[in-house]
Every structure is written in C-alpha cells, then in structure tokens.
C-alpha cells in the first residue's frame, strides 16, 4: 500500500549562505494492508520528515514514494489532493483549522469531501467525538479555543472519520490520559482489522508494543550513517 524506494531529502537554505542540509538518504520501506509499522529513532532522526515526505508535504529530492499506486514524489498537485481525500489520511501533532468552523464540522469534513451525505457524516463525527470524551456542549464551538489535549483528540477524530486505506499517525497518543489512550489504540486496531496500512510514530513504549507489528529505525536512513 505504501512503498518507498531509495528516497532522499535535503534542505537548501538559499538565504543562509546556500547551506545544504542532507536529512535522509536511501529510505526504503514497504507497508502492507492490515499492518502497522512503527518509526523509531531519537528526536531529530527524521521520523516526522519521513512522514511529511510520504504525505507530499515535503518534496522528495529523489527516489519514489508510491501510495495506492500514485508516486507522491512526481504527482501533480491535483493527484496528491485526490490521494489525500480518498486514500491517505494523516494525523499530525497539531490541529490546523479554518477559524470559526464548529468542531463537529471539522471532524465531518473528510467524510463530506468524499461525498458522504451530510447527516451520515455528522453522525459519524458525533460518535467519534463522544468516544474521545469531547463534551457535547463543545461540538458547536471552534476547536481553536480548546485545550491542547482536546485539540489533539479532535485531530484524531478527524483523522479516523473516513476509513482511509492508508494512515500516517504522528504521535497520536501523546498528551492523552490512560482512558483516551486506550480509545485511540482501539481505533488503530479497528483500522488495521478493516485493512488499513498504517505508519505511526509513538513515543509511548507501551502503546508502541500494543499496536505495531514491526519497527523501522529511521536513523539508518540518515546520511551520517552512510559516511
């Protein structure tokens, strides 16, 4: 479902003396449906960078990043957007939303984007928000004013609203209490059972051991390791 071949990435800082910072080299990785792969490595090793390259947020310098048959490294913007709408979900560490939009609509949006009828989309959103212990009186408000933990849970609800065939999870259990953590792990298990291919970053070791089938240490992709 997700297949990376010899992917490399570097940043060129044109306004800081043209410094070139190589951050990734020969990244090769394959994730099948019903599988959850955990990315490991110390902070700064490039776990989130790898995830952003797969999502098309960062431009890969070379190699191929094939998700559901589309090579993200070479695809047109509209192909990547279609991929993000229909195939590839991403739960980032931070919630980024349009001001003024109520929480329920924020969560229902991925469903509406693929043409789910409005009532059905809202029901699914409501059930996810309830599962993640977001109080009902907050649903009509914009999540921009919520606490960090609440925003994180809204973000997760949004990521799991539509059944994406492939999912990227950047620390989905960080800053959650035990009960909510268990709910999120349950959502991940359910997604796996329905056939999703998942790549996750988990700092929480117990969570990692529960849901991941295998691990990839991203520090082997760092250019230093080759030198």
């Amino acid at each position, binding site marked *: 479902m997700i297949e990376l071949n010899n992917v490399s990435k570097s940043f060129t800082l044109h*306004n800081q003396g043209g410094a070139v910072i190589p951050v990734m080299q020969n990244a090769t990785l394959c994730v099948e449906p019903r599988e959850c792969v955990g990315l490991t490595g110390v902070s700064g090793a490039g776990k989130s960078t790898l995830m952003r390259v797969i999502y*098309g947020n*960062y*431009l890969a310098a070379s190699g191929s990043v094939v998700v559901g048959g589309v090579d993200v490294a070479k695809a047109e*913007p*509209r192909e990547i957007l279609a991929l993000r709408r229909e195939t590839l979900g991403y739960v980032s560490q931070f919630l980024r939303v349009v*001001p003024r*939009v109520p929480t329920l609509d924020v969560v229902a949006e991925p469903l509406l984007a693929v043409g789910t009828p409005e009532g059905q989309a809202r029901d699914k959103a409501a059930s996810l928000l309830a599962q993640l212990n977001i109080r009902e009186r907050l649903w009509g408000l914009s999540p921009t004013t919520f606490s960090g933990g609440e925003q994180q849970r809204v973000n997760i609800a949004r990521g799991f609203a539509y059944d994406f065939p492939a999912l990227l999870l950047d620390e989905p259990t960080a800053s959650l209490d035990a009960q909510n953590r268990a709910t999120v792990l349950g959502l991940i298990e359910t997604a796996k059972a329905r056939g999703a291919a998942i790549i996750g970053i988990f700092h929480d070791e117990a969570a990692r051991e529960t849901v991941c089938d295998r691990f990839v240490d991203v520090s082997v992709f760092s250019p230093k390791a080759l030198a």
Partner: protein
Amino acid sequence: MTPLLQVKNIRKFYGARIGCKDVTFDLYPGEVMGIVGESGSGKSTLLNSLAGHLAPDCGEVIFDTRADGPVDTVTMSEPERRMLSRTDWAFVHQHARDGLRMSVSAGGNIGERLMAVGGRHYGSIRERAADWLARVEISENRIDDRPSAFSGGMQQRLQIARNLVTGPRLVFMDEPTGGLDVSVQARLLDLLRGLVREMGLSAIIVTHDLAVVRLLADRLMVMKDGCVLETGLTDQVLDDPQHGYTQLLVSSVLHV
C-alpha cells in the same frame, strides 16, 4: 480529463517594461490556484491578461467552453468574450466598487447579471437575488439599498453574490480579502471555501497574503519580476519552499 483552462506562454510588456512573461499552466475543473508575490511581481497583470481585461502580447488562454469545447479566448471575438465573462467567467475585484454599480440597488446589482443572460421575469430575478443575498449573509431587507450604504465587507460579499449568481465555472479573484479587517476576512474566506466546494468552482486567486492561499488554494504559483519562480501543492510550497525567494517570502511572515 480536459483542463478547464490552458494557459500557454502568456507574455505582457508595458513598452520596454516587463509585466509578465512565459507563463504556462493548466487549471482543472474544481481546482483553486493561488498566485502570490510582492507588489509589482506581475500577478495582477497576469490575472488581467487571462481574464481578457488586458490584451497579452503573445500566448494562448484556452477555455473549455460548454458549447464548443476548448477555444482560445485571446483570439475570440469581443462579443463572444463578453458573453463568456457574463456566464462561465466571473471576476472579483479587490475594490468592490470596481465590480459593482454603486448607484443601483443591491438586488439590481445581482439581477443585472441574470438579465444579461436572458432573465426577464421580475419576480424570479428578485427571488434569486434575495436567495443570493442570504447565501452571502446579507439580510434580505437590504435588497433595495444601494451598495454605497453598505460596509466594505458587505460590498465585497455583494460583489461575490453578483458574480456567482449565473453559476460560473471559473472565477478570477484579485486580492478578494485585501483592505478588509481580519474578522471580516475570516468570514469571507469561510464563505468562499463553502461556495467553491458546493458549486465545484475553479478559481485563480491573486493575493500577497500567504495565510489566505493556505486556506483557499489547492496549488500555488510564486511570481517575481514577471516570472514564475515556483509552483506546486500549496502546503508543500509553503512548508518546503525550493526557491530562495519563496523561502524569503515564507520566512518573512509574522506569526501572531
């Protein structure tokens, strides 16, 4: 899929001075493209050349018309181009007063475009005008007021209603949120996003506000000195800019 708009090697000079040059891109149905750059970068010249307000020195602007398929709008006759700009095209000006008739009522402003495409029944024209006022969050009891009695934000929303009432497929926007205060801006962006999704519009938005394009545009084109420096998926260009100028532009934004 056929692109809705194919732009090929558009070039516009003002005497010896450059307006814009060698601009080529395809826009597909439902796509929203942002054009960013500092003032003087040629983004408005490009927009006006595409929309037929300026005659480009060379190049083609091929639009996929409903009746005849792809047609070059640069070489089409003036009446044909005017018909296009009343039906399938819309242009939202930065200053609402450039796009509105200030001495005609709000309802009349919306109705005028309907009449231009053959609407004749007063009752149904007024009904659609009232419906569109509601969609852009203007109270129906203001339908007989002139836009000169409206606030800047209301005028801008009225201009959008006037433009979208005929169900265009392509909307050109020149700094649609420029000159509005931030709370009004947020409301307008929210409105535009909703309309773009509901109506499946394609749009080309010129702005210098990177926050606006992040929210509205699917893809981005960065211009400087009349040339296109970088294009790509909006969040990719903003989060991982490849060109030095784009990096400078992105890193110059103040965060609140």
